[in-house]
């Protein structure tokens, strides 16, 4: 048998492999060009962009926690026009598949950014950030209600023909219902999960360890919850699910695929090991070969629940 086919298709977008650099964890991609062949990634989800440049929160912006980290960066960014003018040409020259993560304080801002990106050369898809827990306005607020999701996704859908992937927050009671609302509003796929709203306190000083008081938890600590949510959403919608949350090894990639994700994003682990990408890819190839699969797509949603009752009875 030849080398297994790692390519995946999401909303008409053909990715060379299912490994995507997660937004907020890979800068604008160009920062990593010295260490990572950007064209070898399935895609890069660049740092979230508002219409205008944003300063972000005061430091400290991150704190490490058991098997994870909290961040409250506050979406520091150059703004969409500067991105298109200054970063996108470089990404295009490096043959990167670029997914642009967009944020807005209003529905109209989301739509305006989407229009600007539609006219730019080299944008493969738009990821709609309705899930950042670290800003007061927009973002998370939209992603926490069915109506908010519908408004934002609907407005972006009208503004662009590019594939649109709302990025969902896990900080809701029923994430699958949010995914369905996104699908009904015209989403081509959903990506999840963003970070879990969390907090850490220095007990000696009794001060919060982030200047923003609260932040988003990422890293291996959240992985089992993220897997569960990807599983729930992929059962609830017909569109593809892009899964993420604490992926740090090829086994983790496989777990998300089997849970129902068509592709995955890797964020925090890239901080620890910027050379993680070929390890993930090789691990997936090994697994596919070992299990006799010709293509990675054959794994998606293949979680086997049949042994469930037997296992419970015998335990």
């Amino acid at each position: 048998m030849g080398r297994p086919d790692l390519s995946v298709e999401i909303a008409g977008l053909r990715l060379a492999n299912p490994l995507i650099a997660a937004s907020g964890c890979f800068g604008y991609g160009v920062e990593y060009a010295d260490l990572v062949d950007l064209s070898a990634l399935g895609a890069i989800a660049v740092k979230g962009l508002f219409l205008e440049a944003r300063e972000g929160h005061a430091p400290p912006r991150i704190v490490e926690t058991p098997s994870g980290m909290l961040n409250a960066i506050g979406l520091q960014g150059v703004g969409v026009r500067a991105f298109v003018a200054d970063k996108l040409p470089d990404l295009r020259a490096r043959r990167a598949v670029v997914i642009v993560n967009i944020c807005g304080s209003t529905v109209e801002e989301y739509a305006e950014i989407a229009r600007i990106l539609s006219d730019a050369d080299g944008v493969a898809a738009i990821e709609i950030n309705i899930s950042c827990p670290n800003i007061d306005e927009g973002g998370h607020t939209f992603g926490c209600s069915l109506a908010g999701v519908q408004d934002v996704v609907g407005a972006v859908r009208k503004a662009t023909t590019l594939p649109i992937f709302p990025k969902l927050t896990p900080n809701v009671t029923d994430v699958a219902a949010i995914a369905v609302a996104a699908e009904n509003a015209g989403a081509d796929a959903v990506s999840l999960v963003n970070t879990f709203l969390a907090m850490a306190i220095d007990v000696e000083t009794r001060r919060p360890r982030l200047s923003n008081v609260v932040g988003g938890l990422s890293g291996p600590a959240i992985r089992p919850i993220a897997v569960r949510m990807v599983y729930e959403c992929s059962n609830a919608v017909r569109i593809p699910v892009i899964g993420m949350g604490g992926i740090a090894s090829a086994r983790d990639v496989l777990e998300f695929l089997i849970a129902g994700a068509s592709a995955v994003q890797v964020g925090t682990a890239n901080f620890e090991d910027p050379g993680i990408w070929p390890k993930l890819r090789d691990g997936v190839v090994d697994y596919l070969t070992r299990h006799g699969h010709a293509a990675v797509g054959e794994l998606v949603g293949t979680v086997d629940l049949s042994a469930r009752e037997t296992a419970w009875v015998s335990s």
Partner: protein
Amino acid sequence: MGSCERKARRRNRREPTDARWEGRVDAGNERLPPLCDLAGTRLKSAAIVIRGVRGAQDARERRRPTDCRRRPVAALGYTRPVARPVDVDARIAANHRLSDAYNILEIEAPSIARRTRPGQFVMVKRALGCEPLLRRPFSVFEILRDARGAVTGLSLLSKQVGAVTRDLFRAEPGDRLRCLGPLGSPFTVVDPPTRAWMVAGGVGLAPFATLAEALGARGVDSTLFYGGRSGDDLYRVPFFERLGVRVVLTTEDGTRGEAGRVTAPLKRALDAAGARPLMLYACGPTPMLRAVAELAADAGRRVEVSLEPVMGCGLGGCYSCVVRVLDGGARFVRACLEGPVFEGSRVSWADLT
């Protein structure tokens, strides 16, 4: 000796002397080390430069002009030092425990050491895994060489302050250390007749060993103002003296050198410094850096400070290590890219405390 090792030797022989290496030769123009660069040790795991892009990287390196100290990186919006970082799984060659708190770790990472310029740092971690999750930044302390002068690795000066530094204190020779670097923007190395005054507080001595060597190679008249809480906090003074650096010591408890803070003799010296040009460099606790920056500003002298904010990735990906600078209308810039070395007058000190 394997062929890889012989190639490594040949590269080492071609290596310019320190004087040329620092600044005048484009360190990044040197070819990337092969995967077996850590001659003789764990050849397969020595480097994790992404497979499959090696050829393209080499081609880009060859195309690069040889006489630029910094290359503008399109789209990054700033310039960065020429050497591209590499990530190596390095062997710890030695661990010198200097006291109950301080240790010097010698790391076999010549591919990083050879390209490191004074003030640059590495991101390190004992083993990939969840605890601790993130790497930690360390200034490169010394560039290590064998008897013939070939670069064999680098050392880190560490002080136990948390779980990671405690673990580094306990490390044994033969243990491995993931080491990513060189990273960040280096110090500006001055030329004579400008004098160089380095101001170090405690473990803030770390970036000055390489800087002192580079200054010495250029024949710069150099002084080190080195302060600690106690005599137990002061290390490697003979190293600097051998390089011809004048050393002024202070301790807060008066057990060694002048009693008090390092800023006291610095202020006296600044007052008596005369007309000859002078460049200051400082690394240490933030309040000390701020005081040095203020003294330098009052005296009308330039100072470069090496800051150490909390860092997530060291590569510009996470935006956690930002420092507010006063140019461009007060904005946050990433210390891993535009720093850790900053012009003292550029830093918004009120936002750092």
